[in-house]
């Protein structure tokens, strides 16, 4: 069985420092693997634990530096790492990204059984790349998948929406977008890190996957950003420095009463 996991590196925004101008202080902001991608990887690894004969390929698109997230996935137990890295890929929107991912999968892992993605990336949160990828691969899709199981030679998936918990029978090939499950993604062990160090990451350019320049990146994207701006929300509210806690609490109580 062949499983493909699509992952993304994102800036670590959990502990943001602010400048005086209310903008983000970018110094020391590191890249991390998108949190939900850990759950997609863990889902693939659990199926591998169960079914044994499983090859897990991990795919990402990004700068060469994004290689570290593929190494991390291999350290966790995945088998192959494919890095789509080409200046031509830059500026891709979710459609162009999905198209590129669909192409690398059909070129390099055409006999895939399952493609797993994180439900959304914590930086953009469009949640569009996975569904778009399913459509471009022409296979069925389930989103918001909390758990995948294999029993009596059948795959099943549990999907959780705002209102429902749904149980599905799943045939392959299929694309599943994985959300946070009731389990902890595993941490790599020492031998995993050693294996990752010795595993060659396959670097692929636009021409390696037989795509034209105008199909990828900014050119291949049906959307474009016409304007980017910092919103100017000035809400001339009253700001007090807490010097005397008793006085502060008094003010707070009176404001709460006023507002409710």
């Amino acid at each position, binding site marked *: 069985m062949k499983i493909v996991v699509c992952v993304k590196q994102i800036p670590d925004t959990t502990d943001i420092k602010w400048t005086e101008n209310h903008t983000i202080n970018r110094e020391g902001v590191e890249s991390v693997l998108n949190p939900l991608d850990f759950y997609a990887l863990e889902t693939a690894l659990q199926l591998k634990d169960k079914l044994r004969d499983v090859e897990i390929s991990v795919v990402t698109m990004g700068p060469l530096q994004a290689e570290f997230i593929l190494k991390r996935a291999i350290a966790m137990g995945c088998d192959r790492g494919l890095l789509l890295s080409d200046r031509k890929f830059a500026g891709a929107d979710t459609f162009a990204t999905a198209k590129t991912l669909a192409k690398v999968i059909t070129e390099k892992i055409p006999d895939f059984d399952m493609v797993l993605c994180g439900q959304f990336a914590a930086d953009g949160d469009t949640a569009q790349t996975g*569904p778009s990828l*399913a459509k471009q691969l022409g296979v069925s899709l389930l989103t918001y998948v909390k758990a995948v199981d294999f029993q009596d030679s059948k795959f099943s998936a549990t999907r*959780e929406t*705002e209102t429902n918990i*749904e149980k599905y029978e799943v045939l392959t090939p299929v694309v599943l977008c994985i959300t946070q499950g009731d389990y902890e993604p595993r941490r790599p062990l020492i031998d995993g890190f050693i294996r990752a160090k010795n595993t060659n990451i396959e670097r692929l350019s636009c021409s390696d996957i037989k795509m034209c320049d105008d199909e990828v990146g900014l050119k291949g994207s049906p959307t474009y950003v016409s304007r*980017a*701006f910092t919103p100017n929300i000035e809400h001339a509210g009253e700001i007090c420095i807490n010097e005397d806690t008793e006085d502060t609490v008094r003010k707070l109580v009176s404001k*709460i009463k006023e507002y409710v």
Partner: protein
Amino acid sequence: MSKKILIYIEKQNSVSEELAKKAQELLQNFDDAEIAGIAINAGLDLGSKTYFDKIYYVNDSRLENYSGEYYSKISIDLITEINPDIVLIGATSLGRDLAPQIASALQTGLTADCTALDINEDGKLAATRPTFGGKLMATILSKNNPQMATVRPHVIVTDFDVQLKDTEYIEIKPQIDDIKTHVKLLETIKKEISAGIEDAEIIVAGGHGVKDNLDLVYQLAEKLNGKVGVSRAVVDLGLAEASIQIGQTGKTVSPKLYIAIGISGAMQHTVGIMGAKKIIAINKDKDAPIFKLADFGIVGDALEILPQLIKSL
């Protein structure tokens, strides 16, 4: 000039009506404007007067439960037939599954979770959303038609003088016999939905600054008869359920009073509280952007202030 907007009508969700009202505002300067809805097994009790000019509907037993493949096929067929300039869909769990499948098949641009929609000077849909991890707002345009966008419930509220219209209902015949899906629904369990934070009148929210003292946040919420919310940082650390996370990757809320404690106010959080009537913020960092939003702010240590505040309420 003519302009046509198609809106996906979701059963039991206010977002479809919010979008129809917004569409009336967007199209106010077009003499030949049409607002159409598509209702797939959404019931027929929509009424003869709605905010839509036309509603295309289908009721079919095979469509009782949502299926991305079936619903997207029907939507794509209708879009191909009536050729709308713009397609708007609620950014619900259904919409976030459906919209990218439609956009991808039509090879057109889709902007997710917009916080503002406008028509620009070229008559194009200008869809604005937070981007780059919430650092910036971006206005996004689509090169092709239909120009698509999703919007969360309660985010876009228009004060435009909207009108109820005599709605024309048109039945569509779904062409879904050839679909061979690989996912088969076996069982649905309705979640017990306790009144969530979406409808709370008072929300006390804790962030990174009080991550180890969330019990104080809970105590304050209890005193005020409110609900507790948290920022993403707290959920990422495993200290709270994702169901009470507020912001771009969590819930959108519109309480009477929002008290943000130890929350810096990154845009990915504040997009979730744009509907709050009043905001009180307590934060140690005087430069935290939450103070730009707050009606009343205290620069200070929440751990010193909260115990006394809880006592005096």
